[in-house]
């Protein structure tokens, strides 16, 4: 009996009229948890009842506390007939089970009914008393923190990242049980809502157990999904990344003390840490060659009994050079053995949890602490088509587990092929139509710094040199991780344009966010590839085979489109790539969204050249010329629009002139597209000029050109569709990542929105082409609509544009979008990248500081290391140093550009001096640390009290502030206040700090109507439902004491309609992290200063 749950029903308001005769309601409330139910008294004849009930106490296992929601039902008392239900409130108790999160749930909740929507509000108080339970065999995982945020939550530092977590639970869908034929729609909906709530509670508990077993205390990047498999059941699955998080500020004292003692100790006796030394080799990372690649892989395998029928394909997008139109070989069959071995491996090692985590070195994170991400290989993805069959035994969800395991193995082997040992930005999703299910997984192959991995966070000294080369953070991640001589796919490699020391690919695709420290030229923009493919209607295995056969072509085409659009915008990298393929009865929809940027480290992209099939035909040639001109114009315009002016670093270098001359002669010779070999030679011998002048003069088509051959009408259509994408209107930017590269001065105004559009295709006999057009227009029009609606926010950026496509019925296409519009200050947008880097560093929270401090501690302890080694760490160190010492900032700001220039010219010489400077910084810091340690008692006491005051502030001030603010805002109205709750799909709100994470919000709602016309048609129905979902999310957050939801996402929006019957049903699943935020104040630097001093103390003490 390890927990006591207490609930009190205070009052209701705005209740609906339940008694037509009196126009009033006799309301009472049932409070249910598990199998225990309490009732309040009836409050007669009122629409604003004041129950003020006693505390209802439930004595329950903490296992139940995690699984079950508190269920509150408001009813209308009726003496003569059955009591009428007004509506329900489900309250997730989970946030109360974590000591750091909320301590009480108190507030007004909308009373929700699946048929009528929100019907008034109820004020509830909920508390939990937990007793310590030391039972080793416990089934609960209370206290494990969950975050939807796909980065280390602000205000925390990751002491350790343990690895991948996955779990799924299955059940029968109540909607498809026999009993559904005789019960009311309301009962059926409620059964479903309750079941899903239970299942996600159970899932979360199980994931939590895994975290505890791994020794972690939190799940970051928690992603939970539902698969409504219809007849065959209901699957709730989740993935996430297990971490050991430490709270900054208040926790800094503790961490400072544990570092010298426990951490090194565990380090010493931790055998896996030695493992880490070998693992890069074991994982196939050969030496230090790296290059970015896109590799989208698709594999199809039918249900477990059905044999593997389709070859696994890997296609690489590197066709940018060469005359590779369509026919050349980007399609390449991956060695079968690779998958095979992967499968064998799995069989051998799938036992045991830790093994599992190691087996899949996957991370659902999309942004990382500096230094975590070493190299990025490219996108890896796998798809598989399955036939659904009834889940016979819900307790043994083996089939579904096996399916996912297969996919993950595939991903892992693809990552390996790219020379990477880990996959970051990993996600999984499904698309179901009837009995066919496409499982997809994708991520970015990467090499991570072992220091932060499971083996131990302080394992810096033992990490091998080879592996951790001292590449500057602004370009290091672009360097290829795979072997140059043994490339997994054809790609053009050049020396990094930033450091000139390592190879980079010409294009880089990733699923992660743009690293904060990356050097970017100009601004980014949203790039989408859209595709429709018709397919014949079919059943069962035939259908699955048809889909399997179509998938690789779709992926290939999406990829080609992305590549073309990227080039058209004169950019060379994609971040946050998300490819969704949705299956319908008679078509497949593919939508790829990503944010394009120009990475300074990568070569300038060539233009696009149009080539005609037949020569001599004058009219045709004329046509081609005009198209070519249009494309060139577009590229030029885009360059201006996105401010892509690569720095003229080598303007004074005589070699540049030489290089330019070379180019000119090349042109004179008339070879429009240099042979890849030739070109790479050119690059090696001369610093390539990314000079914009030469770029423009030489016309885009000539150098590095990407050739599009017009050989049939398809190609013409492709080119047209390429050019129809409208760029956002003046003042607007768009991206699907966390923030927009090139914009750093956000103001605090945010507007989160959800938009859904459904298109009915009236003509049954559409061609692929016209379908594509329709689909593209649909997406473009949606964007246009957003720009129009949000025009008052200009200048503004639509961030985290998350598109979701579905084919709910034959001839219907549904696109739902969730995004946030954020305003920024116009005046400062022209900031230089170097300055930008600093601002960014400054605005980042102290997580960086913590990491760098470890570095500092370590490098000072291993003082005898070669200077080059130190220099590597220093570049990591600097952004944090800025936080505490302005003196260092100055050095830093001059240091970065100098570094780039210097290293590119004469690496060896200046490098030494750079290292020298670094060591002086270190000396300085060490000195400072000494003074702090040895300094007067007064100082340390003051720092301590500061730390205390910070933590106490955190405990009380946010709540009071939130309350008082709301009181103020409502004063003019008299009535009880409604806290403004901000929502954003990003992990932060600009200009604010998240000072407390209150727990995860994970809600599932069903809404149904039998009076569709009266509710304003489907649009009216969905409009009010989405508004209601927002309202319920806000109410829950406010009741937890929060004032914002970050990392908000709408994962499912399933709409079924039958206008003829005047009916519709919709299911929505949303999630996010409830937080308390405060406006950014100057309290922050003080706090970090305190941390700094103490950590330094500790670090020095350790040496």
């Amino acid at each position, binding site marked *: 009996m390890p927990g006591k749950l207490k609930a009190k029903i205070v009052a209701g*308001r*705005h209740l609906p009229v339940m008694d037509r005769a009196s126009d009033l309601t006799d309301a009472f409330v049932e409070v249910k948890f598990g199998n225990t139910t309490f009732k309040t008294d009836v409050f007669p004849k009122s629409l604003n009842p004041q129950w003020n009930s006693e505390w209802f106490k439930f004595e329950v296992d903490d296992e139940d506390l995690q699984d079950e929601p508190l269920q509150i039902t408001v009813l209308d008392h009726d003496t003569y007939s059955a009591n009428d239900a007004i509506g329900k409130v489900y309250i997730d108790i989970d946030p109360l089970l974590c000591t750091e999160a909320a301590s009480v749930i108190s507030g*007004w909740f*909308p009373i929700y009914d699946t048929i009528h929507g*929100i019907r008034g*509000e109820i004020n509830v108080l909920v508390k939990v008393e937990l007793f310590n339970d030391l039972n080793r065999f416990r089934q609960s995982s209370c206290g494990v923190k969950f975050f939807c945020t796909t980065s280390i939550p602000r205000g925390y530092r990751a002491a350790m990242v343990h690895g991948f977590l996955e779990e799924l639970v299955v059940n029968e869908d109540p909607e498809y049980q026999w009993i559904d034929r005789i019960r009311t729609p309301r009962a059926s909906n409620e059964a479903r809502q309750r079941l899903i709530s239970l299942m996600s509670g159970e899932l979360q508990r199980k994931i939590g157990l895994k975290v505890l077993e791994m020794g972690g205390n939190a799940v970051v990047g928690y992603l939970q999904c539902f698969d409504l498999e219809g007849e065959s059941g209901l699957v709730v699955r989740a993935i996430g990344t297990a971490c050991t998080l430490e709270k900054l500020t208040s926790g800094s004292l503790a961490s400072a003390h544990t570092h010298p003692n426990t951490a090194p100790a565990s380090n010493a006796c931790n055998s896996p840490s030695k493992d880490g030394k070998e693992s890069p080799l074991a994982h196939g990372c050969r030496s230090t060659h790296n290059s970015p690649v896109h590799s989208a892989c698709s594999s199809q395998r039918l249900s477990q009994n059905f044999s593997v029928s389709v070859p696994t394909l890997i296609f690489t997008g590197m066709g940018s050079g060469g005359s590779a139109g369509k026919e050349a070989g980007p399609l390449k069959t991956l060695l079968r053995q690779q998958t095979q071995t992967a499968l064998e491996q799995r069989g051998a090692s799938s036992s045991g949890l830790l093994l599992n985590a190691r087996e899949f070195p996957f991370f659902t994170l999309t942004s990382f602490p500096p230094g975590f991400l070493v190299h990025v290989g490219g996108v890896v993805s796998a798809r598989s088509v399955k036939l659904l069959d009834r889940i016979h035994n819900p307790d043994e969800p083996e089939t579904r587990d096996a399916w996912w395991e297969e996919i993950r193995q595939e991903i892992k082997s693809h990552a390996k092929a790219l020379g990477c040992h880990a996959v970051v930005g990993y996600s999984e999703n499904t698309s179901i139509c009837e009995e066919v299910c496409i499982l997809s997984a994708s991520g970015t192959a990467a090499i991570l710094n072992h220091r932060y991995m499971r083996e131990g966070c302080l394992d810096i000294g033992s990490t091998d040199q080879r592996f951790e080369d001292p590449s500057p953070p602004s370009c290091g991640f672009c360097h290829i991780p795979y072997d140059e001589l043994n490339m997994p796919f054809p790609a053009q490699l050049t020396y990094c344009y930033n450091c000139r020391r390592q190879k980079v690919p010409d294009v880089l695709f990733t699923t992660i966010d743009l690293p904060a420290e990356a050097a970017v030229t100009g601004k980014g923009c949203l790039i989408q590839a859209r595709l429709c493919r018709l397919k014949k209607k079919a059943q069962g295995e035939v259908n699955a085979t048809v889909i399997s056969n179509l998938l690789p072509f779709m992926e290939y085409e999406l990829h080609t489109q992305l590549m073309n659009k990227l080039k058209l915008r004169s950019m060379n990298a994609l971040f946050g790539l998300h490819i969704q393929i949705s299956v319908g009865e008679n078509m497949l929809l593919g939508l790829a969204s990503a944010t394009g940027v120009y990475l300074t480290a990568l070569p300038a992209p060539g233009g696009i050249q149009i080539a005609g099939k037949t020569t001599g035909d004058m009219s045709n040639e004329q046509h081609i010329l005009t198209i070519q001109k249009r494309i060139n114009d577009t590229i030029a315009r885009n360059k201006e629009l996105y401010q892509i002016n690569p720095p003229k670093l080598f303007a004074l270098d005589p070699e540049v002139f030489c290089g330019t001359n070379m180019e000119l002669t090349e042109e004179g010779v008339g070879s429009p597209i240099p042979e890849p070999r030739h070109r790479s030679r050119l690059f090696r011998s001369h610093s390539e000029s990314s000079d914009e002048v030469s770029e423009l003069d030489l016309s885009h088509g000539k150098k590095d050109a990407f050739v599009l051959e017009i050989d049939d009408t398809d190609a013409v259509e492709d080119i047209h569709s390429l050019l129809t994408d*409208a760029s956002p*209107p003046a003042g607007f930017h768009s991206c699907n990542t966390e923030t927009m590269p090139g914009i750093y001065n956000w103001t605090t105004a945010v*507007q*989160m*929105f*959800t*938009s*859904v*559009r*459904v*298109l*009915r*295709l*009236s003509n049954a006999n559409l061609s692929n082409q016209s379908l594509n057009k*329709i689909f593209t227009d649909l997406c473009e*029009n949606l964007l*246009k*609509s957003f*720009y*129009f*609606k*949000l*025009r008052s926010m200009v200048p503004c950026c639509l961030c985290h544009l998350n598109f979701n496509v579905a084919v709910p019925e034959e001839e*219907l296409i*549904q696109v739902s979008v969730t995004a946030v519009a954020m305003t920024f200050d116009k005046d400062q947008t022209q900031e230089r990248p170097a300055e930008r880097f600093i601002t960014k560093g400054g605005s980042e929270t102290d997580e960086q500081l913590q990491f760098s401090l470890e570095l500092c501690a370590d490098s000072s302890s291993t003082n005898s290391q070669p200077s080059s080694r130190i220099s590597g760490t220093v570049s990591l160190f600097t952004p944090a140093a800025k936080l505490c010492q302005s003196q260092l900032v100055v050095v830093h700001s001059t240091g970065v550009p100098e570094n780039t220039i210097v290293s590119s010219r004469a690496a060896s010489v200046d490098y030494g001096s750079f290292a020298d400077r670094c060591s002086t910084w270190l000396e300085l810091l060490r000195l400072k640390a000494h003074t702090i340690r040895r300094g007067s008692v007064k100082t340390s006491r003051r720092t301590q009290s500061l730390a205390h005051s910070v933590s106490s502030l955190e405990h009380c001030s946010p709540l009071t502030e939130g309350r008082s603010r709301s009181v103020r*805002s*409502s004063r*003019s*109205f*008299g*009535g*009880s*206040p*409604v806290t*403004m*709750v901000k*929502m954003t799909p990003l992990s932060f709100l600009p200009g604010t700090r998240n000072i407390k994470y209150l727990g995860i919000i994970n809600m599932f709602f069903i809404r149904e109507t039998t009076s569709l016309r009266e509710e*304003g*048609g*489907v*649009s*009216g129905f*969905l*409009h*009010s439902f*989405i*508004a*209601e979902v*927002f*309202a*319920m999310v*806000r*109410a829950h957050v406010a009741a937890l004491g929060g004032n914002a939801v970050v990392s908000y996402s709408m994962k499912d929006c399933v*709409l079924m309609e039958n206008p003829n019957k005047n009916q519709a049903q919709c299911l929505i699943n949303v999630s996010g992290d409830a937080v308390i935020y405060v406006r950014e104040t100057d309290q922050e630097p003080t706090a970090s200063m305190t941390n700094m001093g103490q950590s330094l103390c500790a670090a020095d003490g350790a040496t």
Partner: protein
Amino acid sequence: MAVELDVFVGNTTIMDEEVYQLWLDGYTVNDAVKARMDAGVLEECEADADVLLSDTMDQYRTFQMCERLLQSPAKLANQLLFQITPHRQVMLIERYYAFDDTFVREVLGKKLSKGTKKDLDDISAKTGVTLKSCRRQFDNFKRVFKVVEELKGPLVENIRQHFLLSDKLARDYAAIVFFANNRFETGKKKLQYLTFQDFALCAGQLINNWTVGAVDNMVEDMDVDLDKEFLQELKELKILIADKDLLDQHKSLVCTALRGKTKAFAEMEANFKNLSRGLVNIATKLTNTKDVRDFFIDLVEKFIEPCRSDRWTAADIKLYLTHYTNSAHILDPFKHQAVWDRYMGVIKSCIFIMYHD
């Protein structure tokens, strides 16, 4: 190929004030789109008609969903469905309760019943205000009427608190409620020259001086019903015209005071008895509800029209009425000074308001 569904929902509810006005004015979606295009909204940002249509539909839907809340504005502040900033809420409410003077002029003093509602299409045709807008305005009047009917305390204050309206708007609503309750006749041809604001000012005078609330401020309907006791007492004023001596005495007092001060003196002297009879008769008949309804028409017929035909200026009126009122105090046998002041104070103000040169 048709758009089956198209919604856009913001966490903070997005509302365009222009579209809100069009919606309030009863434009259909298509008319609103046309109006917005004419207003040049497309030029200021790159958009096409489809975008405009989609946006207008969304906003209309939002307004329709909000309408329920706007009908009891107190709910708007503490409802959870729409997140609207407080200053936006104020704007929404104020505009929702705003009305067209031309429309209100038509229904002023009419019973706010279903019957009147049926005539709204005629009013709509006459005033050029769309039927939808007429309905909203009429329903607003009716709603406010119903709510304050059952409340104690000062009328204006009640309206302001219950409907969160500005002081000005609350006063206008108080006038509308007051007129509807007493069913004052305002539609006669002779009264057509008067604007709503004229009547609203008169209503303010009546509410402040002639209702129960003028004496006791904690009674139900205190500001809506006229003070019955006072109306009874008005009968006593009859003596001013019934008693021949008194009438003559009053006349001579007034004439003495006025002599030489105005060009219209001759007319004043000639008409004194008529005018005095008119005003006192109005007073004495006010116990009949029927005659209360005719209060304004009587004022016009018995006083304003004769004066106007004699070309009195507003200053003449003022001068005359001031002396007329004050002279009664000097009349020895006349004992009803308090009632007389209470009556004449309002009459004077009303006539000033209603007398347009």
